[in-house]
């Protein structure tokens, strides 16, 4: 039997919440390295191709890591470890859902996206449709997705930094905003990519070390770890519990997670940084490997926290369980290891917010400013300047919204971002790639239907109606916690019907060129 850990848990003295020397040193090292990279990248970021797409110079392996960096947020690292620690097996079910979009991304759109696009996913949707309406609609879908995702990240980061370093919430917001703006503004996609790579490597290494240290306490046998958890919290910790009560709810959430990935602008933009379709494909292979590995070992960290730290201690620091992993790090490796993990979590936040900001700025400058306002006549210099102004504006807005939503329950916003992504962006994207008769009106209506239905339905669903607005349980007007199954289906249907009712001859004529580019890469940028 593994050692009984009750007394360790009872006697825990944590330095969480105070800025310890190791934490500050690790934090400063990360900031110094990433800013040095930004300085290096800034000299290589002059043109639009360099700003939005790192000059298409990123290798498949690098992009695989950067995709993982963009996707593995602090919420999934700290949140899922906490969920497994407190709820046991249910957390593991949740973790699986976060991976399954990646193969779908590879099978359905990774290569066509790379072949057809230039800087944003709207390039692909608008490839053979009328620029102005489709760009505006795509930008609405894309920016809404990024905005909700960003609010969730900013509010989460303020809370986490406060919990870990004891820094006041507002300062934390401003600090995150200022550092990530430095990356994006000066270093563009190249700096952002390297920040993602560094963060992904640090996160994967940190969590791996943590997993090995946990397993070392249990004779390197996961079975012994599970036995210890079952001994402390009962066999139910290893059994499915209350997470999935209604299968249709679970399927709807599963659809949002799977196809939402295929509509996340900051993920899609990464495919324009690699040289060709083959590199795009292989980068997803790497990303799926890294992210899959991450979600396989995170539950071991979560169970380890339950066994070695104890659920009571974890909830006494943070009710949601977000501090399970940092507390475990402290038990395993003392203050230095805690400092390292806290710094990794901080780097994770910076990297994800930087990726989101770049995606939002690209949509403003490339889709709205260049294609809608200037009708495609802006010069290289004007576009780069517009993208930097957009970056600065979005960064300020992100910090402002982060402060505005302080103390609010914003956990639903990640689910909402995925719901909009899969209902607004994904249907229009895939229909415009593969369906000859898709028309401009069809695309606009599909996007708007998906976006507004996703937002509207989630407001009257238990997620917001009951959990956020505090209406009585059962008073919700829409039963599903995530609307994807309804809003995504509706978007496809509306896109299909409107396209059949309208005619877009130029779009049909251009389909041959599009096909040549989709399948053979002829003319790809």
């Amino acid at each position, binding site marked *: 039997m593994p050692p009984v850990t009750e007394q360790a848990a009872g006697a825990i003295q944590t330095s969480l919440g105070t800025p310890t020397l190791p934490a500050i040193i690790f934090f400063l090292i990360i900031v110094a390295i990433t800013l040095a990279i930004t300085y290096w990248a800034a000299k290589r970021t002059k043109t639009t191709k360099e700003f939005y797409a790192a000059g298409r110079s990123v290798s498949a392996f690098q992009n695989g890591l950067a995709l993982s960096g963009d996707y593995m947020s602090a919420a999934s690292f700290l949140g899922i470890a906490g969920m497994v620690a407190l709820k046991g097996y249910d957390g593991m079910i949740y973790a699986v859902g976060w991976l399954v979009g*990646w193969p779908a991304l590879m099978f359905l759109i990774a290569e066509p996206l790379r072949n057809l696009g230039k800087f944003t996913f709207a390039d692909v949707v608008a490839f053979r449709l009328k620029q102005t309406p489709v760009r505006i609609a795509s930008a609405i879908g894309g920016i809404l997705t990024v905005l909700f995702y960003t609010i969730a990240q900013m509010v989460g980061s303020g809370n986490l930094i406060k919990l870990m370093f004891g820094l006041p919430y507002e300062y934390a917001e401003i600090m995150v905003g200022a550092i990530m703006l430095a990356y994006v503004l000066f270093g563009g996609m190249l700096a952002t990519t390297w920040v993602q790579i560094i963060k992904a490597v640090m996160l994967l290494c940190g969590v791996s070390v943590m997993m090995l240290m946990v397993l070392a306490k249990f004779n390197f046998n996961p079975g012994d770890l599970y*036995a210890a958890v079952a001994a402390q919290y009962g066999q139910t910790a290893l059994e499915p519990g209350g997470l999935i009560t209604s299968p249709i709810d679970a399927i709807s959430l599963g659809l949002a997670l799977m196809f939402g990935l295929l509509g996340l602008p900051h993920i899609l933009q990464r495919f324009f940084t690699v040289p060709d379709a083959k590199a795009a494909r292989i980068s997803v292979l790497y990303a799926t490997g890294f992210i899959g590995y991450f979600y396989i070992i995170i539950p071991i960290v979560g169970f380890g926290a339950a066994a070695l730290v104890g659920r009571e201690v974890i909830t006494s620091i943070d009710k949601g369980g977000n501090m399970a992993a940092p507390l475990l790090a402290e038990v395993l490796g003392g203050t230095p290891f805690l400092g390292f993990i806290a710094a990794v979590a901080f780097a994770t936040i910076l990297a994800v917010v930087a990726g989101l900001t770049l995606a939002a700025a690209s949509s403003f400058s490339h889709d709205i400013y260049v294609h809608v306002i200037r009708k495609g006549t802006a010069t290289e210099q004007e576009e780069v300047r517009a993208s930097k102004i957009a970056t600065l504006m979005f960064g300020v807005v992100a910090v402002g919204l982060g402060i505005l939503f302080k103390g609010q329950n914003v956990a639903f916003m990640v689910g909402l971002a995925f719901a909009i992504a899969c209902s607004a962006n994904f249907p229009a994207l895939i229909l415009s790639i593969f369906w000859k008769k898709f028309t401009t009106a069809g695309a606009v209506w599909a996007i708007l239907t998906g976006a507004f239905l996703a937002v509207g339905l989630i407001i009257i669903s238990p997620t917001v109606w009951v959990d956020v607005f505090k209406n009585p349980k059962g008073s919700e007007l829409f039963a599903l916690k995530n609307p994807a199954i309804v809003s995504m289906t509706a978007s496809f249907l509306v896109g299909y019907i409107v396209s059949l009712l309208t005619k877009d001859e130029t779009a049909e004529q251009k389909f041959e060129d599009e096909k040549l580019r989709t399948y053979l890469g002829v003319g790809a940028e």
Partner: protein
Amino acid sequence: MQKDVHSLLESSEFKSLVTKRAKISIMLTLLLFVSYYGFVLLVGYDKPFLAQKLNETTATTLGIPLAVSVILASWLLTVIYVVWANTIYDPEVKRLRAKLFGK
């Protein structure tokens, strides 16, 4: 050139390339659906099945290795796709491109 493009797109070789790609994409996506949504439905409808212990002496439930295998299976599907694309799709694309530009 435009005429060549048209005849290439209408050629049986190009059409079979498109069909092949559609077939493999749809097949792998379906397998992904079966493995993931199968798992979700199992959690929804047959919790006792997942809650059963692997053997007499362990606390480990069947659900744990099953969850891990859904992740592994997803990754294996991407490996299958990449191997297919590298060995069958890419050479075909190269051949068709050469036909269009090379003569």
